[in-house]
């Protein structure tokens, strides 16, 4: 059944385009690194952001779309009926989909984020550009946290796709979680701006690495708690999906 779901996912062009869009970050990261390299040459040293962090939202959105389309394309085209006719055990079908989506997004995310990191360090060389101040070991928690955030977003996308059955609604909800809610949180009255802000999806990645959320905002959650909250997003979306999918007429 996993093999069947894997074939479904890789046999449509949207999956290839989405992974291609995520891979574009490697190119964008290289361009960024060249640019900050020339700035460093001119000024001696600068403090530039790491491209795999700066462009992370592009990886997150592209690969979340893989999760969304894994199910909304089935509702959109009507193939959900042949799917459920072939596999009437709905929980097993959804579990296979979730497994395949997790694998098909985690591996590209891992590749894109680590290659972008490596390329940006190669291009920077021994110039002090800011993002190459720490060792690879220092950067590792942030890199792994970033990869995990992509997996979580893809599973959240899958779950919202099952619940809404609509590509637009599911993608809109993912964008809301990633950009809209975190944008609103800082305007809450203290101390809720920090408390709520710390639970926002994009703010969890720096907290996993034990870093400040932003120059203005300290982290609140210890790294292990931030990992748990991040995984919790996927869990909530998937539990909702299983409950709905089990009962609904197809």
């Amino acid at each position: 059944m996993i093999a069947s779901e894997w074939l479904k996912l890789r046999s449509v062009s949207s999956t290839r385009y989405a992974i291609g869009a995520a891979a574009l970050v490697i190119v964008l990261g290289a361009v960024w690194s060249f640019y900050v390299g020339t700035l460093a040459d001119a000024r001696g040293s600068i403090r530039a952001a790491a491209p795999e962090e700066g462009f992370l939202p592009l990886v997150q959105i592209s690969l979340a779309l893989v999760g969304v389309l894994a199910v909304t394309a089935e509702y959109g085209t009507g193939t959900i009926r042949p799917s459920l006719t072939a596999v009437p055990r709905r929980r097993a079908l959804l579990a296979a989909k979730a497994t395949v989506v997790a694998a098909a997004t985690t591996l590209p995310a891992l590749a894109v984020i680590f290659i972008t990191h490596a390329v940006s360090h190669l291009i920077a060389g021994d110039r002090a550009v800011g993002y190459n101040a720490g060792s690879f070991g220092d950067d590792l928690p942030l890199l792994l946290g970033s990869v995990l955030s992509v997996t979580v977003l893809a599973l959240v996308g899958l779950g919202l796709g099952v619940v809404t059955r609509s590509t637009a609604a599911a993608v809109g909800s993912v964008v809301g979680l990633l950009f809209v809610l975190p944008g609103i949180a800082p305007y809450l009255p203290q101390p809720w701006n920090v408390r709520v802000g710390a639970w926002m999806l994009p703010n969890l990645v720096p907290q996993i690495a034990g870093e400040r959320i932003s120059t203005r905002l300290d982290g609140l959650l210890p790294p292990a708690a931030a990992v748990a909250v991040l995984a919790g997003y996927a869990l909530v979306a998937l539990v909702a999906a299983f409950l709905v999918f089990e009962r609904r007429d197809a």
Partner: protein
Amino acid sequence: MCGAPAFPDREGVIEVKQLTKRYGRARAVDDLSFTVQPGHVTGFLGPNGAGKSTTMRLILGLDTPTSGEALVNGRRYATLGRPLHEVGALLDANALHPTRSAYNHLLWMARSNGIDPVRVAEVLEQVGLAGVARKKAGGFSLGMKQRLGIAAALLGDPGVLLFDEPVNGLDPDGVRWIRDLMRSLAAEGRTVLLSSHLMSEMALTADRIVIVGRGRLIVETSVKDLTERYDSLESAYLALTAGSVEYGAAR
């Protein structure tokens, strides 16, 4: 058709028992009971909105009945382990991903039920799509999509087959082909439940007839019986469903 059947006397039988499906206040299927036996093509007739497609979805476990039950081989569809080996269905020929090839559409189905990939090539050959197997299904005509849907139904070599309007969009060659296919599947001892609005075609293809209207059973009999009592299947259908047409011009 794998191993000893759990209910030998119900092998190949579709049993619809007091089946009711309500959507809100509307009763799409209303206390419907009938039985489909193997070895025949059973025509499933009724006006638009009579509940034919809903009944097929209920038989396939896609929708949950409000009350009553539908059994295939003596079991509810949802309890079948590898259902494509027992039941094949074509509900909607357009249910295809436009960028997935015909071959991959059948291959994911084969993999989900442990069917040998060799069967994919066989059924594509059987329905005449071997030459376009690697083409994206989005570019297919309705007739080609119907053939692909029939290939999918035949994939697991099932004993029970359900076809919802498989003739739509086919050219005269295709219509003739479907007729011969349905009859040969029944002659092999399989159960064939076939819905269509084409009465002349149905008269040539089916042996048994189930007519429904407004979700209820109108008649369950043989084509021979109907054509003896009325002068043609079409006349029989029009007379029997006159009170059940929901969407029709004023007469």
